[in-house]
């Protein structure tokens, strides 16, 4: 990381490469953003997450210029809400996923997706491998590829297309109960793989 003061060289910030980032640095960086309000840190987070946030938003069904607009809103809220990020409670990718999900839904439905308060969370550590989330995401992606296609399909249709159980049932022409049991099985297997990896 270079040591130029914030905002001195926008071009450099914009061009900054993330290729030498360590795997678990994103959560550290997001946590430090709330302390330092450092634009260089923000730019790095932007380079890594904005293109993925946009990809996610498009998959959910926000298209064209709106996808760009919502991505920009999500990335602005990363700055605004950085103070509310608690590294010990969630990985950066989890936290940014929530922002992207909520803002996409808000945009599509013109209504706020009902949420439970993140500030009131108890101290129970629930998310496995938080500090290693970036390594974990490779594992999860790999783990999903190991699932039977019928199970990975319902996970993708849920997370990437935002489809309800009923919608998935009619698209795949299978009973509602089968959709739910496939989701349950997939979730159980992913958490087993996840938990197993976490112990190593």
């Amino acid at each position, binding site marked *: 990381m270079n040591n130029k003061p914030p905002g001195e060289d926008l071009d450099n910030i914009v061009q900054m490469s993330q290729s030498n980032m360590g795997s678990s640095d994103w959560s550290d960086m997001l946590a430090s953003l709330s302390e330092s309000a450092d*634009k260089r840190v923000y730019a790095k987070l932007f380079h890594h997450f904005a293109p*993925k946030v946009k990809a996610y938003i498009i998959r959910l069904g926000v298209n064209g210029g709106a996808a760009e607009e919502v*991505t920009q809103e999500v990335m602005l809220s990363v700055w605004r809400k950085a103070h509310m990020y608690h590294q010990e409670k969630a990985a950066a990718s989890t936290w940014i996923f929530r922002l992207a999900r909520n803002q996409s839904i808000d945009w599509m439905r013109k209504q706020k*997706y009902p949420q439970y308060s993140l500030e009131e969370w108890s101290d129970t550590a629930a998310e496995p491998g938080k500090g290693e989330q970036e390594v974990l995401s490779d594992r999860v992606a790999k783990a999903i590829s190991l699932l039977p296609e019928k199970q990975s399909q319902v996970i993708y249709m849920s*997370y990437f297309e935002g489809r*309800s159980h009923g919608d998935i049932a009619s698209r795949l022409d299978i009973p509602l109960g089968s959709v739910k049991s496939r989701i349950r099985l997939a979730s159980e297997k992913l958490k087993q793989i996840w938990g197993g990896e976490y112990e190593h």
Partner: protein
Amino acid sequence: MNINHHLDEATLVSYSAGALSQGMALVVATHISICDQCRQLAEANDALGGALLESLESETVADTMLANLLAQLDDTPQEVATLAPVKPDPEIPAPLSDYIEGSLDQLEWKSIVPGVAYYDMPWEGRGVSRLLRIAPGKSMLAHTHDGNELTMVLRGSFSDEVGRFCRGDVADLDDQIEHQPLVDSDEDCICLIATDAPLRFTTLFGKLVQPITGF
């Protein structure tokens, strides 16, 4: 809080995926806000969402976006985390309190039949999203579902073919179940309910009142 009936994992996955209707998501968020067990599962499912986000192939964003944002940052204050606002009514969990003014007793309840009243949530969509208030000893009409039905108890209790449900408990049912909840508390039972498809009443009376009640 002693909670005995929880959300189905398939429902929790859909919530994290952003795939639930407003009404269903409201029941889930309301339950999670007072149930540690389901909250932990929801956090893990959000983490799965985060991992899936990371696994996506990047989309090109406009060159100007970062410059636009950087130019805005100085004028965009970072929000300070505040303590959760004091809930005006401890009977109403935080996610639900966004949509309710005052206490449950102050709502403008609409009567369906004697002993059964409802209050609709302020949005439209497939299925229903409402509070239901049923007097002691009364029963919800026997019904089954084409889709999912979530029922969370806020006050009182009821029993059905599945078991007994008290404050905080959630009944997460689908089209495999036909049931007829009976209120077995001394006070009215107030539930937050949501369905993602219309109910199918299994009695002639139920079928007759369905057009009136909007279920």
